[in-house]
């Protein structure tokens, strides 16, 4: 049956048809839907893990236990899981093991633009890279067999445009092999030095065997066209090349970017007049060509930054631009922002008002960085706020301690904030950590996590008690505030910053977009009472705007959180007032 699926759903379908028995992942754009779609199959085990390292180790354990397994993560998640991956390359697998990693060229929703292909090269693990949903399904399905045949984990590289584009696929039947027996084999699975020394040559020999496989494997193919121009490409850039050239160029389409073939590339290069390599991000295939003694045109013409498109390819080849029209007036930018009624806003307003230095973290609450709140000072990676504040306070000394906080969401705290908090307690850091607990993993689209009390299927699960956890690691001062109450936020923040010991403030209120959260009727502005002082505008709420010098509240956006009402010194905002 023909279906229109996003790349991530096609991956989940491919893994399912390929006989997956277990998936464990941590959400991360643009990889999240792979696991979400897998969770809809009741005949496999699916779960959210607290972070990518845990997820990958769960998948490894399941493979060891004889069941085909997978995990999915965004590119930076692979940094967290890099430790098990490097050594899983040595142990190999029992049942097939597939690691889906989604890169985000152009950083639609990420903090860097790293190219995961380097991990495949560094860990000596084969990598497949689909260019559309049909390939995403086929490659994921084939990945388990590849994994078992070569006794290795297999990386499946997605990127935003494949992960989140829908294209037509033909779905097939699930073929689930019997679980493999587990046979104790220390020489293969206990990676202490004596054993690891014997496994490393196995890895090298495997890479050679895989490179030979790459010469004729179905993942790489040549599409002959005009031979004046020969293009080696992979992933979405393949689509842009075909869009621009059709069969007016010859294409070597690489579906397995690691290890790369040798003879296939040399043969292709010999049969075309001018050789190009078109790949997003880093020159991985180009460098390989240079090692083979070729001199292709690659990054001298194409940027290592951002996403490409048919326009990028056409422009690089000097093809004419299409005519365009634009309005004369400037179009003001529309950056993402915290939603109307977002529970993070009240706490950020308090931090901004008190001119606090804020070490931030990864999540919706990174949006506290944009004007008018401009409350965040740094954002690095998952958990870095809690670890970083300790170093910052040590460097800056006593004066900073009373003016600095770390902020981190509930899910991110579970992911890698806990160890930082242990460090704060253990090393007697006079630091204040604010856990912005909105009871969900928000930015990636509402996934459950160990603090929510529900598992991936929405069934009740053990719930981490954040207050007890913080106390258990040695934090004596743990306070809970409602971020809709500005006076309470201000008072508690000042008290905890003044305290001469580590403290945690849990700013708790569920995400306003959660289905179970009941919102209040919109507020209104009494234009007679409004003095246009703009104090409410300091919240940066999308529902509040100035029109004809008076404040208005958009009734289609306002959820009646009443935070702006608390700020108005003239009683102009409330349930009464003018109709819009």
């Amino acid at each position: 049956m023909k279906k229109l699926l996003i790349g991530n759903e096609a991956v989940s379908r491919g893994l399912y048809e390929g006989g997956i028995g277990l998936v464990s992942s941590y959400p991360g754009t643009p990889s999240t839907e792979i696991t979400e779609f897998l969770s809809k199959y009741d005949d496999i085990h699916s779960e959210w893990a607290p972070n990518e390292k845990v997820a990958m180790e769960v998948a490894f354990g399941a493979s060891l236990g004889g069941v085909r397994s997978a995990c999915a993560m965004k590119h930076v998640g692979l940094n967290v899981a890099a430790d098990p991956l490097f050594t899983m390359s040595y142990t190999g697998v029992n049942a097939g093991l597939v690691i889906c990693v989604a890169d985000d060229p152009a950083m639609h929703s990420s903090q860097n633009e790293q190219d995961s292909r380097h991990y495949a090269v560094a860990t000596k693990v084969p990598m497949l890279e689909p260019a559309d949903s049909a390939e995403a399904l086929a490659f994921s399905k084939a990945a388990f067999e590849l994994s078992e045949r070569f006794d290795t984990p297999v990386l499946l590289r997605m990127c935003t445009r494949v992960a989140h584009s829908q294209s037509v696929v033909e779905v097939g039947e699930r073929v689930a092999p019997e679980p493999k027996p587990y046979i104790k084999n220390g020489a293969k699975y206990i990676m202490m030095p004596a054993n690891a020394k014997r496994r490393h040559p196995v890895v090298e020999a495997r890479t050679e065997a895989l490179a030979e496989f790459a010469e004729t494997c179905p993942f790489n193919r040549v599409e002959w066209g005009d031979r004046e121009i020969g293009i080696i490409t992979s992933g979405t850039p393949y689509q842009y090349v075909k869009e621009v050239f059709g069969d007016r160029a010859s294409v070597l389409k690489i579906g397995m970017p690691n290890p790369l073939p040798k003879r296939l590339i040399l043969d292709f290069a010999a049969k075309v007049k001018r050789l190009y390599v078109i790949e997003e991000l880093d020159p991985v295939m180009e460098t390989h060509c240079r090692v083979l003694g070729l001199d292709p045109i690659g990054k001298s013409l194409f940027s290592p930054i951002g996403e490409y498109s048919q326009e990028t390819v056409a422009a690089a080849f000097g093809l004419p631009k299409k005519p365009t029209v634009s309005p004369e007036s400037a179009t003001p930018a529309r950056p993402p922002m915290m939603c109307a009624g977002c529970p993070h806003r009240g706490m950020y307003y308090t931090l901004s008002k008190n001119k606090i230095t804020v070490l931030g973290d990864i999540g919706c609450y990174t949006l506290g960085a944009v004007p008018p709140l401009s409350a965040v000072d740094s954002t690095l990676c998952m958990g870095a706020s809690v670890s970083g504040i300790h170093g910052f306070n040590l460097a800056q000394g006593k004066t900073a301690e009373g003016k600095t906080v770390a902020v981190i969401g509930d899910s991110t705290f579970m992911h890698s904030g806990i160890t930082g908090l242990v460090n704060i307690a253990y090393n007697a850091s006079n630091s204040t950590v604010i856990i912005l607990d909105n009871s969900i993993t928000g930015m990636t689209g509402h996934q459950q996590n160990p603090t929510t009390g529900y598992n991936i299927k929405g069934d009740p699960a053990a719930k981490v008690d954040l207050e007890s956890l913080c106390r258990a690691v040695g934090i004596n001062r743990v306070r809970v505030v409602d971020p809709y109450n500005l006076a309470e936020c201000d008072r508690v923040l000042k008290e905890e910053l003044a305290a001469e010991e580590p403290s945690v403030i849990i700013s708790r209120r569920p995400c306003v977009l959660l289905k179970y959260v009941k919102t209040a009727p919109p507020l209104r502005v009494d234009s007679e009472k409004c003095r246009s002082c703009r104090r409410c505008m300091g919240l940066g709420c999308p529902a509040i705007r100035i029109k004809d010098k008076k404040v208005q509240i958009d009734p289609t956006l306002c959820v009646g959180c009443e935070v702006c009402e608390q700020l108005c010194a003239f009683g102009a905002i409330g349930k009464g007032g003018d109709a819009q």
Partner: protein
Amino acid sequence: MKTTNIMIVGVGGQGSLLASKLLGRLLVDEGCDVKVSEVHGMSQRGGSVVTYVRFGEKVYSPVITEGEADYIVSFEKLEAARWASCLAKGGQIIVNTQEIAPMPVIIGNAEYPSEILGELTAKGVRVDAVDALSMAMEAGSAKAVNIVLMARLAKHFEIPFEKWVAAIEKTVAPKFIALNRRAFEIGYHA
């Protein structure tokens, strides 16, 4: 069969997802090769969002670039102007006249360019400006703006009315079929 390019643009949270789902369903049923591309994540939080829908005999690229869109369907006025440079020569803009202020306007650093559609019309761009919000409310819910706009788009296609309605019935939850059917009829016949 030439590839047709449709862009659906708006503000995160406005419901463009259903519109692209509906189009995808309809066009696959018509036997076309289809690609639909959108970006999730950070851009959903009140930011500018864009979905590309391309269909024809064989579609390669999932994205639409400058000067290529045959139709731009915009859920919001400013967004129509923002993406206008993607419109192909002779292309059509369908726009909901609702204004949603972006943060620079909210905090008073920029003016909302309320007359911006006029500037495009003056340059010969075909603009179908509709009060889709009022039409959706008339149908029973502000959330039906997406279906009203799809109805305006449907008028430019040879695909019969009934097939659009059938695709709506396959796309939305059963309890919302009547509402969306009403919204489609209002938009189509307005």
